[in-house]
């Protein structure tokens, strides 16, 4: 009896994957309408269905893909588009560094593919569930959550390119709040546990707002995240990683 209970309390790889899927579900809700819109927009920009889906499969970065499609539509050059993408996505370098610092026990064979699946949203959800990384099969948890986001993104793009905008405009516009609400829903419980965490977020919000007046969104977010995170050096307790 006791042994049974003990075995039941130890999650299997499949359990962890399922858990990852469940926490990744809000990302799916947010990604589907955005991916649909991307599919429609990319088609209008002159990309073929293959090209626009390939971009989702290989690039997997929402904001960059929107920008890429827009720039292709206005006839921007390849170098220009690629550099703009680098700037916009440089924040993922900072996020990845924070992400893998909690995954030191996980081997390179998993760490590298998982880090390739980092987006703003998968990073945010993973970071809030950073303790899963220390558990056995923690890698399956992250894989489940990232794959949920990935397939929603790819599938949504395909649908958008194939069928056009199938969600009524007013509903899809309203769903634009989904990812912001998810970020808030992730942040608030941490703030309730430790108020200082909210201070870090507010510092970053203000920095992002101010930087946004002088530079591109890409740089503003990178700097706000790096400098805002730096306030954690003074505010957060020692971490026994």
């Amino acid at each position: 009896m006791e042994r049974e209970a003990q075995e039941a309390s130890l999650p299997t790889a499949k359990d962890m994957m399922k858990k990852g899927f469940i926490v990744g579900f809000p990302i799916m809700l947010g990604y589907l309408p955005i991916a649909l819109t991307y599919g429609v927009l990319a088609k209008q920009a002159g990309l073929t269905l293959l090209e626009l889906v390939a971009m989702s499969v290989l690039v997997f970065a929402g904001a960059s893909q929107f920008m890429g499609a827009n720039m292709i539509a206005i006839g921007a050059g390849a170098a220009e588009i690629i550099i703009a993408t680098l700037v916009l996505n440089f924040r993922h370098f900072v996020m990845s560094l924070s992400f893998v610092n909690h995954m030191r026990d996980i081997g390179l064979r998993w760490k590298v593919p998982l880090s390739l699946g980092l987006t703003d949203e998968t990073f945010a959800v993973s970071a809030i569930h950073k303790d899963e990384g220390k558990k056995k099969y923690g890698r399956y948890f992250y894989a489940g959550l990232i794959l949920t986001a990935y397939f929603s993104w790819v599938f949504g793009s395909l649908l958008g390119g194939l069928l056009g905008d199938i969600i009524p405009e007013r509903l899809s516009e309203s769903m634009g709040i989904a990812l912001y609400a998810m970020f808030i829903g992730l942040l608030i419980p941490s703030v309730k546990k430790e108020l200082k965490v909210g201070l870090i977020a507010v510092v970053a919000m203000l920095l992002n707002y101010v930087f946004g007046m002088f530079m591109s969104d890409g740089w503003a977010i990178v700097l706000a995240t790096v400098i805002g995170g730096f306030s954690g050096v003074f505010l957060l307790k020692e971490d026994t990683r």
Partner: protein
Amino acid sequence: MIFVIIVGMVLVTMIPRAIPALIVDKLEFRDWVNRWLNGIPFAALGALIFPGIMTVQGEDPRIGLLGGLVAIGLALLGLNVILVVFGAIITVFLLSM
């Protein structure tokens, strides 16, 4: 041409994401660096929420802000993230009627 753009975009998105994973095992961070990296998620959440949330409804920044306030309220009540998301979607849907 589009193919070249896609390949370029793949490289500049993959490389920044993968480099930390490749080098982290060789690095031993001081405590303050760890604390900085632990602060990154909360700073990123802040920067991702604001001021972007004001652009949810192009014409009226108040709609996004009100949706955000509802999300804050629901999250403070301790509701699951999925319900927070639904609550915010319904709020924006009703406000933009």
